[in-house]
């Protein structure tokens, strides 16, 4: 096994791990904002790790360049999308969940 393949396997594994934690957070966190936090943060990191892992097994420079471009594009757009969604929710008047005010969860879940 080449060392590049080992690096790829490790990076892909890490990426999948972060995707998994992101999905778990999306399901388990109490309210809209923390769920989006889980999804947004891990998405940016997981895609960077996965694409970085693929970089080590790319057959030529053209493919590598494209992988880097995709990673950079996603690093810019994913946080922007998260920001836009969060800001829209905030402007819409959705209050964040706190321990003192845990009613938000039921309100959030009541919405289809």
């Amino acid at each position, binding site marked *: 096994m080449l060392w590049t393949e080992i690096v790829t396997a490790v990076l892909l594994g890490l990426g999948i791990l972060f995707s998994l934690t992101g999905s778990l957070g999306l399901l388990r966190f109490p309210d809209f904002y923390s769920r989006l936090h889980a999804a947004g943060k891990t998405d940016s990191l997981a895609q960077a790790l996965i694409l970085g892992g693929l970089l080590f097994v790319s*057959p*030529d420079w053209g493919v590598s360049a494209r992988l880097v471009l995709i990673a950079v594009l996603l690093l*810019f*757009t994913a946080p*922007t999308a998260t*920001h*836009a969604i969060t*800001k829209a929710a905030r402007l819409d008047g959705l209050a964040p969940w706190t321990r003192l005010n845990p009613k938000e969860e039921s309100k959030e879940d009541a919405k*289809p």
Partner: protein
Amino acid sequence: MSEVLLVDSVLLFLVTVCAVAIIEVRSLYAVAMLSSVYSLLMALVWTNMHSMDVAFTEAAVGGGISTILLIGTLVHTRRDERPAKRRLHIPALVVTLLTGAALIYGTFDMPRFGDPNATIHHYRVPEMMSQTVAAASGREGKQQPPEGYDPPPRMTPTAAQWAGAVHAIDQAEDALEKAQQNAPGEAHHGGEGEHHEGAHKHPVDDFNGHVPNSVTSLLAAYRGFDTMFETTVIFTAGMALIMLLRRRREEGEDDFSQKGAALSGQVILRVMTKMFIPFILVFGFYVITHGEIGPGGGFQGGVILATAFILYALLYGRNALYRIIRPRTLEILAACGVLLYAGVGVACMLLGGNFLDYAALNTASPGDGEAMGMTLVEYGVGITVCTVMIIIFNQLAEEPSKAKAS
């Protein structure tokens, strides 16, 4: 179970889940987003089948612009679906079941995926390989099929023959893999080169002069009339929407100098938009121009270009967009795209060929003529698609309350 089948099964399962969710979910915003997810999943299925052009179109049109347009439509309707009475409608159920059964029965006649004996490998492609559009008018430049190509007769294999053929293909693939492992330097340079070196499994795609992407060559030359009228259909749809939704502009509304208040507080979004619009535009033009070489073409490129304009209109207000392109200019450009397509056809006729016989554009080198004609035609498609998408978005985004008042 092969990997392709496994991935396909997972994807198709997700597609089914998506479809059921679209039926069940009440919130129409969720439905719009789910239909976008549905399209992206289908794009992955097409990618898995190596039909890149279809995947590209599905992602750009289904996943991208239709979601925007669906959400734009929601401005004019309610946010939630009206709760329907849940009652079993027996005749409707019977009709649906019969249609479904007929469709499934129809698929039994289709060849298996990847079947080397499929009709396409015996009936159309060999014929196309031995002809170009120029051949119809009997000029030079007819491209012969590759040396030693002998179209095999159509045959129906028995089960044993079929299994044998599959086994033979597997063995050949193993041998090819081994050969590539033995010569790693060569294998890494493979990809495109392989297809021309004789190691290809499919017939060479380059049957239409200098246009390597057989899909573009099919769409723009072989069935150029279809594509022309598809463009006309899109143009007509845009015009129909203008007639349906346009309201009379009020006094003073025609000067677009005043700033719209749209999303003026969104600093981050505005900065990102300004950063990315140039790249989106370059990518759109690349996709249109590159359509004859790789996946892409006028439809996908036009949609990508339209996205840049729509993004600008979303973040800076429609007046800002109208300061760049007047509504009138958009309408004229939409007509110009169709005109460019048909004009190329007429130019071919004036130069002595048939309608849309691109080889007539360059008699010295018919292949180059075809490449040029197809690029021009793709630009015609791209201009029409782009402008019509912007027009549809603008018409949908008009404030409905004002429309009622006037």
